[in-house]
Every structure is written in C-alpha cells, then in structure tokens.
C-alpha cells in the first residue's frame, strides 16, 4: 500500500514525455520516470521512496526497441528483464539479468529501472560497462549519445529533464567469451555478496563488479593489473585488492573482510576459466 497520492502520466510519444517532464519540473513537482514501478511500490510502502508525479514510459516506442542494426545492438530502457532474457541477443546480459531478483519480479523490472535503481547493485549495467556501450538519452535539448564511461559513475548521472532511452552495444562484443558469477550470502537467492562479470576481448580481460562497494564499477587500474603478464596470478590478485575503490560494503550480506576473501576467489576463478595467460 502506498499511502501518498501522486499524479500519473502515461505519454505515448517521446516528445510528449520530455515536455511533460519539463513542465512538471518547472512546477517543482517531485517527478519519477518509471516503467515497471517495482521500486516505487516496494520502497514507497516503507517510506523510502516518495513522489508527487510519475511519468510511465512503457508506451513510448523508442523505449521498447530491441534489435540489431548494422553495427549495434539496441535495447530500450523500458524492456523487461525477462523479455531481454528470452530474446537472448546479448548472452552476457542474459546471464546477469537472469539472476536479478526472481522471475516474477523480472517480468516487471526493466533494463532502465535496474540501471537507474536506488537499490545500489544495479547489476544490469555491468555488461554495458564491459562493452564500452553508448547511452542514449532524451532531454529538452534533444537526443544525446554518450559513452557509458562518461555518464555512469556509481550511478547514471542524468541531468534534470533527462530520460534514459536506450543502450547501444557494438555487435562485435556480443560473441566475446565471458563469465559472470553471482555469489550470495547463501545459496541461490538474495542480493549479491559480489557479482562479478568478466569479458575477454582478444587476450585482455575486463571485469566489472557489483556488491563489493555500494555501487557497481569497472576499473581501468584493476584491469591493467589483471592483464599484467609480469606478475603471477596471486600477485595480480593481491595487488588488485589494494587498488579497489571503497568503501567496501560491510552489512548483513557479509563483512568487508569476507567480501575480500570472496572477491579473491572469484578473480582466481575468472582468470582460470577465461584462460587468461599468467
């Protein structure tokens, strides 16, 4: 039960949505752009989320795109995770997505919703960080196309009036070898203790991590160390631990020290499984 009232809009064109957002913001109404609504429902009922207006973007065609063009895979922000999994155009994303929440919830949770979530795991962003994807954003001044590395720092840095439209990933990455492991406090359900995704591009390994810090990240420094062939595997792993961003999460899922132990094991597993030369 949400005990607060809010205005609900469901525009059918992008133009309408952008204008609506601008107007509502001019009126200083706290506005939320959503599609599935899972976070508003689940956090709103315990007073952790509140809004005065909602713009539901699930009828906007551009937000529902899913397909390949000449160069890229394009995924709309309002696609549900189950829809993306079923189409399986991006196996790494399918794998990450399929372990988020549960199947029922994933029928509602959208790609954009997970990436822009308040709950900080935002695991769906990991494949896009690994593939240097482009983020397509609609705003009052038109469409912007930005590298994910320029706009995603801990979370998606949307400006006032911006709506996340699509994510574009170069086709050449879609077939690259990958490994994605979600380690939980216990067994197969629950938030990640650590989710790590790795992609092998040529001989280089790329990794992106969620659940270790209160935000997902991909770190160039970490990758340089992992790919440094002058170091042994253990040296690489031990050095990586020293350069990781902070703070390391210390919560009911696991202590920080234990997370370090888990991460070291995962790195070892990834390096060995993807046969990175050491």
């Amino acid at each position, binding site marked *: 039960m949400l*005990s607060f009232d809010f205005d609900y809009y469901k525009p059918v064109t992008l133009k309408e949505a952008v204008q609506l957002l601008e107007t509502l913001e001019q009126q200083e109404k706290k506005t939320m752009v959503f599609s599935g609504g899972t976070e508003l429902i689940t956090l709103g009922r315990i007073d952790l989320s509140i809004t005065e207006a909602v713009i539901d973007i699930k009828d906007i065609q551009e937000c529902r795109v899913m397909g390949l063009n000449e160069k890229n895979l394009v995924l709309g922000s309002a696609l549900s995770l189950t829809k993306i999994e079923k189409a399986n155009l991006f196996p790494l994303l399918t794998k990450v997505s399929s372990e988020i929440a*549960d199947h029922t919830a994933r029928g509602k949770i959208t790609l954009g919703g997970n990436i822009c979530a308040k709950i900080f795991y935002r695991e769906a962003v990991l494949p896009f960080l690994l593939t240097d994807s482009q983020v397509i954003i609609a705003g009052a001044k038109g469409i912007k196309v930005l590298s994910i590395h320029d706009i995603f720092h801990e979370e998606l840095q949307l400006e006032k009036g911006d709506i996340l439209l699509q994510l574009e990933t170069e086709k050449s990455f879609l077939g690259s070898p990958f490994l994605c492991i979600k380690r939980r406090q*216990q*067994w197969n*359900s629950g938030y990640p203790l650590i989710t790590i995704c790795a992609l092998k591009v040529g001989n280089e390994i790329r990794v992106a991590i969620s659940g270790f810090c209160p935000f997902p990240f991909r770190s160039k420094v970490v990758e340089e160390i992992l790919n440094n062939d002058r170091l042994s595997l253990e040296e690489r792993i031990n050095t990586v631990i020293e350069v990781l961003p902070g703070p390391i999460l210390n919560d*009911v899922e696991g202590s920080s*020290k*234990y997370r370090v132990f888990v991460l070291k*094991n995962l790195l070892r597993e990834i390096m060995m499984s993807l046969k990175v030369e050491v």
Partner: protein
Amino acid sequence: MKVIGKSVIRKEAFDKVNGRALYTNDYHSVSMLSAKLVISPYGHARIISIEYKDALNMPGVRAILTGAHLPLTGESLRDRPPLAYDKVRYHGEAIAMVVADTPSQAKNAADRITIQYELLPVVNSPTEAFQPGTILVHPKLGDYVKEQDMNPVPGTNIASHVKIRKGNIEEGWKESETTVEASFSFAPSDHVAMETRCSIAEISPDGNVHIMTSSQAPFMVKQLIAAYFHEDLGKIIVTTPLVGGAYGGKASVQLELLAYLASKAVGGKPVKILNTREEDILTSPCHIGLDAKIKFGADQNGMLKAAEIQYLWDGGAYSDKAADMTRAAAADCTGPYHIDNVWCDSYCMYTNHPYAAPFRGFSHSELSFAIERTLNLLAEKLKIDPLELRRQNAILPGNTTPTQVLLNKSSVGNLPKCIDRLKELIQWEEGQVVEVSDRTIRAKGISCSWKTSTIEANAPSGVILTFNRDGSINLMSGVIEIGTGTKTVLAQILAERLKMDVDKIHVRMEVDTQTTPEHWKTVASRGTFMAGKALLEAAEDVIKQIKEVASPVLRAEKNDLEVANSRVFLKDNPSIGVDFKDIVYGYQFPNGNSIGGQIIGRGNYILRRISRMNPETGEGRPGPEWTVGAYGVEVEFDKIDYTYRLLRAVSVIDIGTVLNEKAAKGQVMGAMSIGLAFAGRETFYFDEFGRVLNPQLRTYRPLRYGENPEYLVDFVLTPQLDAPYGARGVGEHGLLGMPGALGNALSTAAGVSLHHLPLTPELIWRTKGGEENAFL
C-alpha cells in the same frame, strides 16, 4: 473399507488452489475501520514524550491510543503492556495505535506522531543478560503477577528458571572416562508464515466482543481477553477462518488485544489491524534464540554417564511463551539418549530483542543443534562412529527421561530402528566424506531427536457430529486448519471408524468459539491425537444412538447390529437394515409414527496423568508420549570458498501409524525445509542499539524452491497404544534434526567445529580463522 493411510485430498484443497479460500484479511465490511501502529525504532529506550495532536486532526482519524492506563499482559507472567508505556524494550515494539477510516489514513496519521526517546544501554544476548550486575530489562520483575509454574528471579534478567536434577551427577562424572564440553549460540529469527497476522474486533451494543483472527489459539484469545480486560467469557466470540501458515507464531496472543482496544476506543465499531511483513517480523513475536553450554561424560565403551547442560533462552523483551519453551527444553534436555545422571538449568532470559513465540518444535530443534553437535565431538574424541554412538545410547522402553518418567513400548517410539533405516537411506557405509573433484567433496551429517508435548495438563479437545438428512455427517472440531491437513485426517479417522465414504463427511473449517467445541490450541503436534480421541468418542456415541433407534425398527438386539456404509444392519444378514438417511433424523413407520430424532454425536478428550514438574528436581510427567526420529543431511562442499549445496536430507520418524501418507510426508518435508532454512540462512542481525537490520524479505530469506535438497522421508511404525489408530504426533518432527545434521555435515566437510547458526559460508570462513588472516 480402508481410509486410514490413504492420501485423501485435503477438504480445503479446491478452494485453496482456486484462490477462493478466505483468510482473516479477506473479510471486509463497509463500516470497518483500520488500525495502524507506531513502533519503536530502538531496542531499549525511555519514552520522553509522545506528541500526537497533529495526527489526531488528520482526515479520517477516529482515535489514537497510547500505553497509559492499560493492564499488563502475558500468558504466564504479566510483564507486557499491550502498548509500550514509559519504556520500549525491543525494536518494533508497539507504542501508539491510530484508528482511522482507511488503512492509508491510519498510516498517514501514524507517520505524523512524534516520539522522543532517551536511549538506554541494550541487553543484546542472553549471555549478556545473565551477567551479574548487568542492565535489567524488567527492574520490577518481582511485582508482576505470575502463574504457578513460573520461577522468576527478581533483581536479574531471569524470567524463569527450570531445573533438572536426575541421578547423582558427581557419580556420573566419576564413571566418565571421556568428557566433552562445548558452547553454542544463535540469534532469534522469524517464522515467516505466508499470511501476516491479522485481527478484527467489534464490540456490539449488547456487549458481545467479536474477534476474527489468524490464530492457532482462538480459545486462548477468548480466555485472555476475559482475564486481562474483565469481559464476560461467554460474551467473547472468536472466529478463525483458514490460517495461512503459523509454525507456532500464531499461538501467541497479541494483535487480538490491540484490535479489541482499538474497537473499544471507537465505541465498538469494527476495527481491523493487519501486520505489514516488517511488523510481522519485528513487532509480533519471533523465533527464540539460544546460548547453550553442554558437557557430556561417557565411559570407555562410549556409554553416556553424565550430562550437565545450561540453556540460556533468548526470550526477548517479554516472557510470554518463552517461559514454556524453557520448561519444554528442560524436560527433553538431553536429546533422545539414556543418561542416568543429568543436571540441567534452563533459563528464560530477558533481552532487548523481539520477544519469542513458539516455533515449530517448541525449543527442540534449537537444543538439538547443541546436543547433536556435542555428541559428534564426543564421538570424535572416543573414536566411535557417530551413528553407532547414538545407537548404543538411544532411549529405550525401560529407560527414564530427564524428568524421571519411566518409558514403555507405547510411550516412546523405536529410535534404534529409525537409526538403522537412516543408515540405509543416507548410505552411511559409503563414508562420511566422498571426494567429488579437486575442490569439492560430499559430506554427511546425522542427528536424532525426540519430543514430547508439554502442553497444559488439563488441555481439552471436543468434537460434535451432526447429520444431514441425506445421511452425511458434519464434523466440528476446534482444531484450526493452519495448513497441516489435520481436519482432513479427522474425516479419515471418522470414515474409518464408521466404515463409510470419506466424501460423505463434511468438515467445518472455520472455528468459532461460541459453537465449536474447544480444542485447547492447535499446537505441539497434538491435533490428531487429542481431537482424534474426542472424535472416536463422538463416533461411538453416534453408533450407540443409531443402534438404539434401529433396534426396535429392525426388531433385533443392539449387539446384533452393525454400522457400515452409511447403514445400520444385522451382522448376520446385511440385507436387513436401514440407511442413515432414514434413521438419523428419526425413523418414520409407514403409518407416520416416528421414533428417535436428530442424532448428535459428542466426544471429548482431556490429557491424562500429566503432572507439573518438581521445581527442585524437575521430576514429573510433562507429556503423554515421545516421538523419536533420526536424520541425515548430505552436502556438496567447496573446499576453497566454503560454499555448499544441499544434496539430500533424510528424516526417519516413528509416527506409530500413517493416517494419510502424502499429508504425513508433506508435513515432514515442509518441516525439514523450515529446519534447513533456519540452520543455513535465517537469522536476525542486530546492531548495537538492538535493532534488527533485516526485517524484510529482501534480506531475511527463507528457503526458495530450487535451493532445497532431495527429501527422503520414511516412517517407522511403533503404535502408541492409546492414540487413534496408534498414530504419534508428526507435525513438527521433520524440523528437529535438521540444524544438528547440517551442522555435523559441514563440520565434517570443513574440518572445523561449527558452533553457531546460521551455517553460512562466512561462518565457516570465520571459524577456519579467515578473519584473523584477512587484511584490509
């Protein structure tokens, strides 16, 4: 006709699978108001002020209640204000209650109430609570009204102390060549029933108090409301529809009192109070925690000679049912083993944690974890196979229990037989550890359990049978259908006794305390035993009445008559008889003359020869019979990262007779699943303010489908002679051995002794010294 043992489909199954079954919160009415609680954000604090003027002026608000001037409540000890007054003693404790026209109006007003607190130091574990000179949760413990068998120690945090002194403990230690001593602990957790608790109250102008509630104990609700608030017992009518899972958590009486107070505050209008999941976890009573110390002594042959046991139960802020669990734990303190010299101190401790409700197994799965882990340590020290150690010390007819009850073939099941069957099912001969690959192994752990039901010595159960004009029967019993299928099993017992079609027996699912005969509480695996006994008496009553009417009609002696297939007939010539439909509403002769009349069967049962425990020695008979069981769990364990998968879980339980095979197996599997979740994942995480950090299903996670192992359930059949068709209680027993067996499997797999729950990979890592070796 054989109905006993058949997997008859539950009488309420079609309603349930079609989503048509109604639970308390499904009942609405236009005039119904809603209540909403304001709960404490801290574990222990003084309430400086409660400001609710603004809230009172919010739209739809009818009343706001606080704890001033309310009587103290509590089942065995009156230590709990229905709404906190002066102090809060646990995170989630109800402080104020808003009554408004709609749920959201009530919530909005509740959000507007501001409370100022002064934080107090927190008692964050039963061991802390036990330290001399520590903070007192109840400084006025000595002033509280108490029941006879409560032993509170004023000036301490001990709400009740139960002692067992059996044999000569010094002699026991002298005879012991080998001793082991170990400590165990785990925090409180939750029941997580699918249906959160809900109560509705209405006080009609004639003074009748109507309560509808999701409860295992509607008759207790009635008694307690009468006792606490001085209402006439007969004017309180409690109704319970189907209950969506309870696991003991709905045996405590809490929301009903609040609903009653809320209705009273608004002139008797109907008021509903429904827990959110967070309130159900925090505010309503939880699953008890424990700190235990166990010491066992054995002679050179591995025969147990002495046991010294200390249980510090984490009863939380209020004693309520925790005091009874403390006693039940003392009565069965050693586990199902014969030991001549036993010394046990079981303490119900106050802490600043949510207070405890019964939890399926009533303290037995908890104490079993400590006992069964210690036995494995003993086996290791003695270099005896842990299964063999259990078998040779298994409790047998002729042995005595810790409370000195002399057991016989009827009062205790056959544990050695359970152990032998377990040995086969878990493939014990294969070895406790099997290598799977470089990094993974399979490991097995085992455990045993026993349990008697330490319910009130005079607990009653009654049954009424009425007939329909087609000869079918209506069965009314005060047992609550909490998901166990007990009412279907009762129909089977009746069908068996009357040798009739079970489909012609209609079971009333709802209970209302005005017209349904009382069944004490639907707890402690006692539904089938007690209601079954009452039912058999009612069946005899019906048979007797039918024969009385049929005797002149058939012109035959009553002794020459037989009842079967919804008919009464001559034993030696079945073709001469009368159908039920022609006799159960009186028999009419061809000329219109009638005899007999409506047949109403009645039966009742009261437990016999149950006695209170001696306060100094514990001597006494706490329950009618002991169900025993043997358990095994097999895991696949990763030696590098300490993660594991549950592969197989086995329960072999002596249930006397199988009344409904699938229902019995379902009960055992369901209980095993709860036990594994409790052992492997479920716990409250507390911070230094006594706050529960995971009061949501996001972070408090029961077992999900797919995480479960393969379940293997088998039964041993040693009849309990005085039970309906020999059946023993089985509702709880699948749970009891799971924590111990999983703990033993993982301790074997990891090569370290595990002493805490839940058994997470992080716990194993920490026990292996991971923390000390870690760097950050």
